[in-house]
């Protein structure tokens, strides 16, 4: 007869207790506020795929109007930064080995002669293949520079374009192709994993270690209430961390935001369901903080960074790994986040993501409830 009101009272008391602990425990504050702050700045400043000032060396073996004109084009482009200039390529090869430059453009001695005689004139582009991504960019940029030089020359002489077929690129959602615009929204997934999974796993493990779990178990509290009492505060804490990241992303880092706040809130709230569920599951398995933190890092934090499509392309991964990403909840969250920030509320994409996150969350909760019993053995 008094079961229902008592249940509500117990739940409220647990939530109040948990909230007070969060506020007063420096390590919770650290994980919930300082680490996210640190990470968002790291992601904002430290991670960048904008290869727009790649340092290269330029070798011009012979001085003719053609070679000097082409060299000038290389100096002028904003994507490449000519750091070393020489007449003999051997002087720059060491710089390439030491990593002081990322590539070497060589305009050979034969260039002008072949070019003027209508034979194929070659510009040699040597990129440092030890960083394949940068190497591809150097090759693309160098090709673009040579092409533009030819076009300018032809245009100046009134001839027609050297390239009959060309592409006119249009970038949707992120016209300037700034990688920050996609990395920062995605990094919210990493940060919320930190709060949702790592912190939750740690605080439950702490209750076991300090012996408070034993005292709680001897009261009329049910296990469901105990779990729910943990979830509610960390749910709001997760949303708080999200809010902080969004504000910083929009103000300090000027990230584009085209979607609606409501959609953002919805996907974030739904993401917390599997994230918290995973945290609870980990803590049910690992009853000390050492193991819990290891498990949370390996199964939560790292996948949210590596297997979520945040930085690395899921499409390019080998099939077994690609299949693995389907059970990483962050994958769906990153996709929804990038879309709501850069493209807007595209429900055709968001809804399946929400469904997948709910499903994973339901599995985690089912397992967590099954493995948490109100007993010590």
């Amino acid at each position, binding site marked *: 007869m008094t079961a229902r009101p008592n249940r509500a009272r117990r739940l409220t008391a647990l939530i109040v207790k948990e909230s007070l*602990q969060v506020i007063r425990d420096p390590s919770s504050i650290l994980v919930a506020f300082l680490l996210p702050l640190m990470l968002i700045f790291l992601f904002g400043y430290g991670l960048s795929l904008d290869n727009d000032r790649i340092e290269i060396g330029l070798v011009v073996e012979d001085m003719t109007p053609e070679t000097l004109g082409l060299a000038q084009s290389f100096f002028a482009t904003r994507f490449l930064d000519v750091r070393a200039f020489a007449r003999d390529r051997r002087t720059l090869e060491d710089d390439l080995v030491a990593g002081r430059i990322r590539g070497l453009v060589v305009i050979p001695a034969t260039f002008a002669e072949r070019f003027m005689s209508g034979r194929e004139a070659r510009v040699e582009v040597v990129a440092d293949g030890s960083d394949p991504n940068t190497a591809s960019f150097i090759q693309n940029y160098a090709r673009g520079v040579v092409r533009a030089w030819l076009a300018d020359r032809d245009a100046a002489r009134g001839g027609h374009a050297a390239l009959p077929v060309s592409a006119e690129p249009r970038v949707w959602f992120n016209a300037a192709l700034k990688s920050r615009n996609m990395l920062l929204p995605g990094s919210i997934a990493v940060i919320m994993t930190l709060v949702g999974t790592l912190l939750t796993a740690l605080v439950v493990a702490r209750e076991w270690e*300090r012996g408070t779990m034993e005292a709680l178990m001897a009261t009329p509290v049910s296990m469901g209430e105990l779990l729910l009492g943990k979830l509610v505060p960390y749910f709001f804490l997760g949303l708080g961390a999200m809010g902080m990241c969004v504000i910083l992303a929009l103000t300090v880092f000027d990230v584009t935001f085209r979607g609606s706040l409501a959609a953002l809130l919805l996907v974030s709230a739904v993401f917390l369901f599997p994230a918290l569920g995973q945290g609870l599951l980990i803590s049910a398995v690992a009853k000390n903080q050492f193991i819990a933190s290891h498990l949370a890092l390996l199964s939560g934090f790292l996948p949210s960074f590596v297997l979520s499509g945040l930085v690395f392309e899921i499409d390019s991964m080998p099939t077994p790994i690609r299949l693995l990403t389907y059970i990483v909840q962050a994958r769906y969250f990153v996709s929804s986040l990038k879309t709501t920030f850069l493209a807007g509320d595209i429900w055709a994409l968001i809804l399946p993501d929400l469904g997948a996150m709910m499903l994973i969350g339901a599995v985690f909760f089912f397992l967590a409830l099954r493995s948490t019993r109100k007993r010590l*053995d």
Partner: protein
Amino acid sequence: MQPAVLVEDLEKRFPGSAAPALADLAARIPAGRITGLVGPDGAGKTTLMRLIAGLLHPSRGRIRVLGHDTVAEPDAVHALIGYMPQRFGLYEELSVLENLRLYAELRGLARGARKATFERLLAFTGLASFTSRRAGALSGGMKQKLGLACALLETPNVLLLDEPSVGVDPLSRRELWSMVEELRSAGTTILWSTAYLDEAERCDEVLLLNEGRLLFAGPPGALKDMMRGRTIMVRDPRANRRALLRRALEVPGVIDGVVQGRAIRLVLGKGVPPPEPHLLGASAAAEIRPDTPRFEDAFIDRLGGGPGGHSPLAAAMPAITHGSETVVTVEGLTKRFGTFTAADGVSFSIRRGEIFGLLGPNGAGKSTLFRMMCGLLTPTAGRARVAGLDLATAGGRARARIGYMAQKFSLYGSLSVRQNLEFFSGAYNLRGRHRRRTIRAMIDIFHLAPHLDMEAGLLPLGFKQRLALACAVMHQPDVLFLDEPTSGVDPLTRREFWTHINGLVEKGVTVVVTTHFMDEAEYCDRLALIYRGRLIAEGTPDALKLAARSEDRPDPTLEDAFIALIRAEDANGERAVA
């Protein structure tokens, strides 16, 4: 009358260990009484508590709490019991009042009754002026009282207290007992588990556990009565009491003995008449008189008597004759942490071959003092010299002359017994043949051979304690620092431990010990009582007892003396403030 808790044919096994934690256990815990669950560490006390609280399920048999089966109706059981686990179950980040509120809500205490209940419990526990202090900042005794208050909300029918007196000073312990006695008069059933056998005497009923089996159930008096006429006190003004005890324990018919201030106290075998002084090796001036039996006597009798008085460890040690007569000097030792003064101008000195005890309530500053003497803390003012050297600044050579045994078992738990011995011998400069020989000697003396390859952390407590002592004395130190060396250890191991210490002292080793155990304090030559960072009394155990003698307490125990001295100091302080 229906028992509050009925235990039938109980057995509890944990996966991975061959021996059952509890076996063949049947017991009735009567309603409205204090029942003591008594036994050394590892006897199965906590397991039984958890089984009664429904937190563990029995492997066989069953338990009913006021008629409710703990497996079938755990919710009904939880509604009836109050349970204070060993670590009190408090949230350190929450204040006193917030902890109370949390447990009040969880137990469904009526809102209307809350204010009155809180007031009553806060007054009862003396925590009323600390309601906003965080639980983490409370002293051990206060934490324990708060833990008790949390278990008492919505006055439970059955109150389970798991080792509430561990690490708690005599003053707090006494206050706790009076609280529990008050609860009993209100009709609550109390189950109090403890490793202190002297606490058993205060209980109405006792369940005596050893290695998972019930040794005795019934009123403690019944057990004590069996020992009537078998305990004597021997006081010999001419003899060294440690040597006397050693000789007496070798006499046939003497099954146990301890130092009791200036005297020694012996337990005799069944039907053995009190021996003549000369048989004990005492002088003709010795006075022998009967003493009242204790619960511990009966316990040791049940286990077949204590260890003898001979210490092979001491026999293997060379006598220390070198160095000055005064080994430790402490002058105006002061330590401040911020605005808090943990030690305030403490001075004393310790002579060679003396056992010096540091006593004091929790948080009084004796640990701080102890750590400064070992060189683990740098004093704010004053200095501590051991063998003429300041250990904090002296080199390794000086530290090689002391031995140290920490409060908790602080050897390497993941290393085997042999590896621990090898490490500590190496760290203490032993090498070559001498090192191998010393390790072998330690293994023989402490009977470690069967456990050599076992992880030290998995050893039974008694063996852990032996290993810790072995590691502390392997290098034959001049001075031995012992920080609560035997807390939680069973009485037999404690006897054996003190036999070794007594033997070492006879060889000239100086011992500094902190303790909460009054029977351990009795072994000391001199005691220093530390309170609020200051030295408030110093003297032999008998002198301190004498100082506390009064009309209504003609023969005070050391515990009485301890409490009286602290009360007097409190009164002094108040007068000074007024």
